[in-house]
């Protein structure tokens, strides 16, 4: 009897040692993870397999599989039209501008927020500056329209007119939009970044400041010699991550704030709006898939390189 039990126990040990047996032992955990795995497969992996579409002349009557292979033709079209360079330039230009302005303003705002001693006031300021981050881009579109409506908007009626300037038909005047979009983006995102930096500042050991005050360091000195150096890792990480996403524009911003006005394209068309337009408006799937693949590949390379750099700075902050 006893030997049978021992044998059985041995058998179960060897079974669980083999990979299959081991997985069987953990079947409940696998079942728990399964819905997530499946959803990711549908939402993320299936589209990845779809990148081959960039090398096909997709037409819906033949179906996805029967559509003709066209090699690099889609890419040739994309670059021949000069569109590619324009949208890439716009995407990078806007993202760099947003990154610089948001980082500087957010750090400044965080330092100021940290100076507020009154609990209630501090809460109030924090709430109001992140409120814009809480609302949808559609609402942002309304807010922008309130200011820029060409006939009735606040800017034309209460700024341009009283100053004796010509009213501007904003939604048909592309030259102003680099500034407008930068302002809107700052308005929407700077509070969020500031709160992140504020969390880093709050984490700084107070003793540094106490020692500095004893040594007679001014506020300015405290800021430049203690606060900023100590939150530098956070600044660097956030900046590098933003650089990793520099090829991805905020579609909502460029679509809603401009009210998708075609007349603004010469300064506001970015990769994401271009792909959207090619797919949903003009139905040019070749351009949509090739520009999309370009964006994915460059984005992938960028984020890998950025991760390498982050690892050099601090391993624990690297993504992987």
């Amino acid at each position: 009897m006893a030997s049978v039990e021992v044998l059985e126990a041995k058998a179960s040990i060897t079974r669980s040692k083999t990979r299959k047996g081991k997985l069987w032992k953990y079947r409940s955990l696998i079942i728990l993870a399964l819905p997530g795995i499946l959803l990711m497969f549908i939402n993320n992996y299936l589209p990845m397999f779809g990148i081959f579409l960039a090398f096909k002349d997709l037409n819906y009557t033949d179906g996805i599989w029967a559509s003709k292979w066209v090699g690099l033709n889609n890419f040739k079209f994309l670059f021949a039209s000069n569109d590619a360079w324009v949208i890439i330039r716009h995407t990078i230009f806007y993202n760099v501008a947003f990154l610089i302005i948001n980082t500087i303003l957010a750090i400044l705002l965080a330092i100021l927020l940290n100076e507020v001693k009154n609990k209630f006031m501090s809460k109030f300021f924090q709430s109001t500056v992140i409120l814009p981050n809480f609302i949808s881009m559609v609402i942002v579109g309304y807010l922008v329209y309130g200011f820029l409506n060409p006939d009735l908007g606040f800017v034309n009626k209460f700024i341009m007119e009283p100053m004796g300037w010509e009213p501007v038909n904003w939604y048909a005047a592309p030259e102003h939009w680099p500034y407008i979009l930068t302002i809107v983006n700052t308005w929407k995102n700077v509070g969020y970044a500031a709160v992140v930096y504020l969390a880093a500042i709050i984490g700084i050991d107070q003793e540094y400041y106490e020692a500095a005050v004893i040594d007679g360091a001014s506020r300015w000195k405290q800021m430049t010699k203690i606060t900023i150096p100590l939150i530098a890792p956070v600044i660097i990480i956030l900046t590098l991550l933003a650089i990793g996403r520099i090829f991805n524009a905020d579609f909502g911003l460029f679509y809603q704030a401009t009210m998708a006005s075609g007349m603004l394209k010469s300064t506001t068309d970015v990769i994401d709006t271009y792909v959207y337009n090619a797919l949903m408006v003009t139905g040019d799937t070749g351009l949509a898939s090739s520009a999309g693949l370009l964006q994915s590949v460059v984005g992938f390379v960028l984020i890998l390189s950025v991760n390498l750099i982050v690892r050099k700075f601090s391993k624990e902050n690297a993504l992987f």
Partner: protein
Amino acid sequence: MSTNKRTNPLIIAVLSLFSLACLIPFWLVLTVSIADEKEVLKHGYSFWPQKFSFVAYQYLMQDAEKILRAYGVSIFVTVVGVVVSLFVTSAMAFAMSRQDFPLRGALSFYILITMLFSGGLLPWYLVYTRFLHVQDTLLALIIPGLIGGFNVIIMRTFFTTSIPPSLIDSAQIDGASEYRTYFSIILPLSLPVMATIGLFITVSYWNDWFTSLVFIQNEKLFSLQYLLNKTLMNASFLQSIANKAYSSTAQVTQPLESIRMAMAMIAIGPLVLVFPFLQKYFVKGLTVGAVKG
């Protein structure tokens, strides 16, 4: 920074200006929505209207069906999406948080890939329209937001750092299955992280208009955000809302401008009212996400 208890008034002034800049666009939309239409047409959108009128809201009340329906769609999609998403995310995170689970590494890699590479809009669109065939259904609004690699990782980190493995071990020695452990031990203990991530998922479902823009044609399935988007960008859509209401009121002119902004207010209002109560969790979530990023 200093031991001095009083805040520098200059700092208060600068921060007040910042706050004002954040709030003032909302004020403009509010005043236009309650301003007298004739005055709006004559003087433009003003921060201080001279004459008030709630006729725009009356208009929208006359034809509240569209807005109520859109609210219904948004609430349904958000509630279902958040509940399902929290279950799916936490279950996956729970499995991955177990030190002895042989697939942890593989799953981490599986998630990482989704965060690094995307197939792009066109293949993604085709998966939902040609493969799942969910276009013009509420599923198209729910499925895409159900899982995010980032949320899984944040939850997994929470489970590994805040729930002692000995707790799980002792439960299982007492005969609890993995499911039982997950439902009766993990879920009750992880309310803080559930609240934080749940709020983020709520906001992203509630604010979503992109999936509607891409997948939804049927007017009956318009979410609140998408209805607003249509009203703003499509003058004839706004007109159609006004016309329908117009036929049942005695107004001579249609206050289109005020109606437009009143629609925005109806959508913003409830959100701004709950925001102060959720703000704490929202801030917490922002910083958690950034630290893990």
